[in-house]
């Protein structure tokens, strides 16, 4: 009997305690203002209520979520968000971030889809069908933002995003890929341009990692040495979908006249840029199939298979090497990418843009901004070697800590490097067509013995026909 009574008392006390706890932690459903007897200490996203004088419990009103920086988000908005090649590795991160977004902007439903090799085809088909996603992860480096924006498919952001929000990003990243002076993208995760070194091959040359070229013009000599000492070919890839950009960064080429009425990539700078590749092809020091493939994976796969001395990529793709060839991982080295004649070390990698036809522009902007805000970027950086587009993220200890893993090698200089990223390529009309023309004539020079000057003269003549 005594035991039963004790058990009953214990049960009642547990129930009472549980109810009290539930009352204290309940989210603010009503708008009862805090009484003078109650002090509310807010440390978003958690709210702590501390009772000072009376025993009266009042449901607190939380302060605005500091991550909810976009006003006028449409109530009950349902938005579709497409990412590029992030699933399944980052499923948890994406889901967690969407959950945090839902706390910041309650009532918005986000339907996330990840698209991979067919991303571009899927996206074009969805625009054609009128059911394109509201928020879209687009590559800046591949020129996707400018492609879609120039066709009027993306929402201009400059007048829709408050200045204090724009100021969260590195100015060079916010202002890159402008179309007629207007920005269409939230800068998302960035890569540091590095070269991965395979010490198993590279060390056979007798060179040290410090001897790796600092300038792009020194690569041919290195490739000749590698071919001579190791018999392997250089794993170098032209950005065949955007050769114009590559010649601007590497060769400091001016691609179009100031008035935009004629192309100028037949200059001495352009010819010198092309001649460097022609010389490497003639010397037989580069893998020709990798050189002109439009798929970065082809070059990465060659490196990952352990058959190339180096490859230009980002530290984020070291995970591919580790996953697919763990034996090579222990032989990896990382060096900063050689700088081209332009002196600009790189441009942005990924962004999130908004569909111009979205029914929920503010909710979509809010989502794009949320995924690219300093906190989300920092969390993302902690799980993969990408770098935030927001200076505030770098104040975290995570970035000041000494690198341990090879993937973290770029952490100490990442902020400095990314702050200098800039898009120095002017707006190119009919960019895809011009790049296709350039590719055709560049191939003539590389593989068909057409002199570099002749190839570019022909290309400019053909490209000029596209201009009004």
């Amino acid at each position, binding site marked *: 009997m005594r035991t039963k009574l004790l058990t009953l008392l214990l049960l009642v006390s547990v129930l009472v305690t549980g109810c009290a706890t539930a009352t204290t932690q309940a989210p603010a459903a009503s708008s009862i203002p805090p009484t003078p007897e109650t002090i509310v200490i807010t440390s978003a996203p958690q709210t702590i209520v501390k009772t000072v004088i009376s025993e009266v419990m009042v449901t607190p009103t939380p302060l605005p979520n500091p991550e909810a920086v976009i006003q006028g988000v449409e109530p009950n908005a349902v938005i579709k968000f497409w990412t590029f090649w992030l699933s399944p590795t980052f499923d948890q991160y994406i889901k967690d971030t969407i959950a945090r977004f839902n706390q910041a902007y309650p009532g918005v439903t986000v339907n996330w889809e990840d698209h991979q090799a067919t991303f571009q085809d899927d996206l*074009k088909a969805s*625009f054609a069908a009128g059911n394109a996603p509201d928020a879209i992860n687009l590559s800046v480096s591949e020129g996707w933002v400018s492609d879609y924006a120039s*066709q009027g*498919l993306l929402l201009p952001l400059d007048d829709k995003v408050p200045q204090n929000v724009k100021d969260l990003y590195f100015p060079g990243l916010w202002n890159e890929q402008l179309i007629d002076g207007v920005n269409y993208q939230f800068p998302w995760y960035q890569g540091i341009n590095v070269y991965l070194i395979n010490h198993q091959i590279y060390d056979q040359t007798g060179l040290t990692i410090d001897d790796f070229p600092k300038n792009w013009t020194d690569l041919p000599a290195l490739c000749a040495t590698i071919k001579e000492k190791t018999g392997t070919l250089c794993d170098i890839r032209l950005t065949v979908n955007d050769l114009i950009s590559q010649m601007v960064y590497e060769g400091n080429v001016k691609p179009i006249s100031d008035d935009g009425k004629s192309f100028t990539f037949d200059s001495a700078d352009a010819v010198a840029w092309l001649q460097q590749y022609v010389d490497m092809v003639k010397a037989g020091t580069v893998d020709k199939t990798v050189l002109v493939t439009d*798929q970065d994976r082809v070059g990465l796969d060659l490196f990952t298979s352990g*058959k190339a001395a180096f490859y230009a990529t980002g530290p984020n793709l070291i995970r591919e090497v580790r996953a697919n060839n763990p034996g090579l991982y222990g032989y990896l080295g990382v060096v900063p990418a050689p700088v081209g004649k332009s002196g600009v070390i790189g441009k942005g990698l990924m962004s999130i843009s908004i569909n111009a036809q979205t029914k929920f522009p503010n909710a979509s902007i809010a989502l794009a901004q949320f995924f690219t805000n300093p906190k989300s970027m920092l969390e993302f950086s902690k799980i993969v070697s990408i770098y935030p587009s927001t200076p505030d993220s770098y104040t975290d200890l995570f970035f000041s800590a000494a690198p341990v893993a090879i993937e973290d090698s770029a952490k100490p200089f990442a902020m400095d490097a990314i702050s200098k990223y800039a898009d120095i390529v002017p707006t190119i009309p009919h960019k*895809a067509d011009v790049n296709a023309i350039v590719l*055709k004539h560049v191939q003539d020079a590389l*593989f068909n013995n057409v002199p570099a000057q002749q190839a570019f003269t022909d290309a400019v003549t053909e490209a000029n026909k596209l201009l009004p």
Partner: protein
Amino acid sequence: MTKKFSLTPYLFLIPALVVIAVFVVYPIFAVLYYSFTDYSIVTPPVWVGLKNYTWLIHDTIFWRSLAHSFVYLLVTPILIVLSVLLAIVVNRKLPGIHLYRALFFIPVISGSIAVGIAWRLMLDTNGIINAILLSVGILKEPMQWLAEPALTLPFCMALTIWLGVGYYMMIFLAGLQNIPEELYDAAMLDGCNSWQKHRFVTIPGLRPQITFVAVISSLAALQVFNEVFTLTGGLGGLLQSAYTVVFYLWQQAFRLSHAGKASAIAMVLLAITLAFSIFNIRLLEKGTEAD
């Protein structure tokens, strides 16, 4: 006596006609319309009249692609000869013959993309082909096989043949098993040797299958895409060396967003394949009548 009209057969045809109308007839007319427009897929089409066809006439890459597609037709006679030979070989009652038939059929069910990637790896600079040729001393240094413009298209054709031979072999095998044994007995009594039996019994007996294979394999050859795409990594070969009409169509539509131009290419291809099929069938039917 007048025959009474019956609606019943037409009702049975409706499901098939609906499917054909939606997935064949409508797309053909839609593509015909788009071929007269400037259409980037993502923005509405704008009528431009014959501009795309004029562009096509003057486009050197289109003519090169068309020439490559006609060269690709060489796979048809090679496929027929190889698959008839294979069918004759496996049309024997030998122990384990089913295993051989299955082995020859494996490439068909493997999928062209997977096989294309496997071939690409084999032909890679560090692939098994180079390894073998280097080990036996035929090569002194590895070749970049797929970076040789003269070899890219032949490699694609070889892949098509390798992929298709098992399928066509099965068709011919079915045909062989329908040829009455008595015909071979009669030929033997007439003093025919082995070659003559095939020349005068097997080949005429397989003529319906040969007609069928000639038509479908040549149409497939004119529409080849997967092999070119996978072997060249989406590039179409250095110097457009493996561009075919469909590859060029795909590039215009999905790489350059010129769906109008791509539609014009599609209409030209439709006309060619239609004419080719009619010619092919007539020619082979003529041969059948002559027999």
